[in-house]
């Protein structure tokens, strides 16, 4: 188990290292120099530009720039934001994290609270009206673009009815209702499918038949034999979906101008603030890697067969 843990940990670090190179290289290839951004519309001499270039180390070879950057990153220094001059990248990101965290924790909790019971029930009453409605809704939910639902929500609840704000996070809980609902709906659609499938799988297994044959009450069969076995794939899928959830939050925060790291990411990209973009990509990838690692470990703890490979 320890060996497995160490290997997975090393793989995770290697992955983050590769991603840092990939991102750094990509952004270096981007058109437009950060110097242009720093200078803005001001008329400056070539000398001043050269000074800025030298100050930001942009005149040195790319691999040297990378090594300087990654060296600083390893010491927790992500440099300064270019578009918010003088503000450390870590501070810009730290300000945005609580919003994203609150948004996603609420959305995922809501999705789990609805999707898992519904998925189990749909599987238990297979081919009932409830099953058809649930399956149809989740099939539709997977096919609908999340940003479109978001905007329809804005049109209906903010523009027409005036109940909720159109954007931002400055209206207390009201600001959270639409983005949370949209993210939760998207996650729910996926989770219901997984839960229903896992429950059906568990329901048809031999040990459940045995449990029934020996006269256990249906409630006991469901809670102890079916749901318990179905939970493993559900937890796993939830863990592996972290990357999708982060994708969702980038789009939805941008649609709602919600000041979390998702909007920070797209805004920084549009304003060519690659210092922030680099740091955010590393942060997002770290979250995914850690999430996947924890999922693998949970799985390995429960299912010893996994550890061998």
């Amino acid at each position, binding site marked *: 188990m320890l060996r497995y843990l160490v290997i997975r940990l090393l*793989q995770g670090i*290697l*992955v*983050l290292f*590769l*991603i840092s190179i*990939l*991102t750094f290289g*990509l*952004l270096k*290839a*981007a*058109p437009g120099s950060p110097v242009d951004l720093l200078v803005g519309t001001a008329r400056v001499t070539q000398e001043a530009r050269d000074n800025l270039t030298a100050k930001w180390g942009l005149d040195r070879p790319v691999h040297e720039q990378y090594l300087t950057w990654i060296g600083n990153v390893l010491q927790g220094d992500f440099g300064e934001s270019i578009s918010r001059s003088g503000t450390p990248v870590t501070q810009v990101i730290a300000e945005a994290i609580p919003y994203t965290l609150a948004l996603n924790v609420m959305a995922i909790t809501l999705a789990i609270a609805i999707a898992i019971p519904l998925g189990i029930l749909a599987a238990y009453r297979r081919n009932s009206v409830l099953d058809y409605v649930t399956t149809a809704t989740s*099939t*539709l939910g*997977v*096919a*609908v*673009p*999340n*940003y*479109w639902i978001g*905007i*329809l929500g*804005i*049109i209906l609840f903010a*523009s027409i009815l005036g109940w909720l704000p159109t954007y931002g996070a400055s209206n207390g809980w009201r600001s959270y209702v639409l983005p949370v609902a949209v993210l939760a709906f*998207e996650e729910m*659609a*996926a989770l219901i*499918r*997984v839960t229903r*499938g896992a429950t*059906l*799988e568990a329901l048809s297994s031999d040990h459940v038949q045995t449990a029934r044959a020996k006269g256990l009450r249906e409630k006991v069969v469901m809670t102890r034999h079916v749901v318990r076995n179905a939970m493993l*794939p559900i937890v*796993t*899928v939830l863990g*592996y*979906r972290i*990357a*999708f959830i*982060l*994708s*969702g939050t*980038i*789009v939805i925060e*941008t649609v709602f101008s919600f000041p979390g790291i998702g909007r920070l*990411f*797209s805004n920084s*990209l*549009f304003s060519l603030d690659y210092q922030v*973009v680099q740091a*955010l*990509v590393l942060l*997002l*990838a770290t979250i*995914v*890697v850690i999430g*996947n690692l924890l999922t693998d470990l949970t799985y390995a703890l429960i299912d010893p067969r996994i550890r061998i490979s």
Partner: protein
Amino acid sequence: MTFPTSSDQRPAASGAVASDPMLADAAPSAGDAGRLARGVDGHQSEWKRRWRRFRAYPPAVPALAFIILLVITAILAPVIAPHEPLDNNLRLRGDGPSSGYWLGNDANGRDMLSRLLYGTRIALLVGIGATTIAVTIGVLVGASSGYFGGWVDLVLSRLVDSLMAFPTIALLLVLAAVLSPSIPLVVLIIGFSVWASYARVVRAEVLSLKQRDFVLAAEASGATSWRIIVRHIIPNVVGVVIVLWSLAVGGVIIYESALSFLGLGVQPPNPSWGRMLADGRDYIREYPHIMIAPGIFITVTVLAFNLLGEGLRDAFDPRGRR
């Protein structure tokens, strides 16, 4: 915005098409494709059986019909569209549906219906093109990784891990911002961004195939790696690949629309559905009708491809449960 979850990507067809290990020596091409090659009879009955299983999933045939309709629309867009998709008609700015303009006009007075019909071209081009690229890379990487193992597997798997750790939208946005893409470039960007999960599925499939008796038998009888890959492994992953492909197209269409919606995908004035939603977004107070139809087009198209995928899974993998 969801891509198939990992349970959706459960390895499909290999076990489904039971190949008789006893035949492996006599007829090297075990597996379904091999059986097809052996005689017309086998061919017909196998495909008939698949068609029957496909049809048994009620939404599959309507979904297929709808996709054929989309393809025809894309090809015949200039003939079908009632107006020019790029013609501004400022007198009609933001008009609602009317007899001459069934779905109304956008904020530039362009005919919504014509733009949507032309948009089919972009959706299908990007959806099918990018998915084909992604699945092709996925199969090549996954098969080499699974078959050769060792350091090849080690290197390729870390590459796959790295791509999987990138939230797809983040990667797409970075690439699109760096490359400021044309439509063919959007196809390439999405294709090269989403292949990793297919590589994983194909690798797992190949790993399990390698242990199967007919492959071991072929190895024992001295077949070369090349021959084993071409005659035994590939024919047996065809089913999985077809299912993966059809389940992926919908997700890719959503990615394109999201990218275009955020302003980094297909550039104006091209009538991408996502782009139309982005254009309409500035006018949701004045002309909310602009936001309705493009979203419905995206949803129904994605739905059709997803349902087609489900039907194909039934056809190629009878183990799949619904």
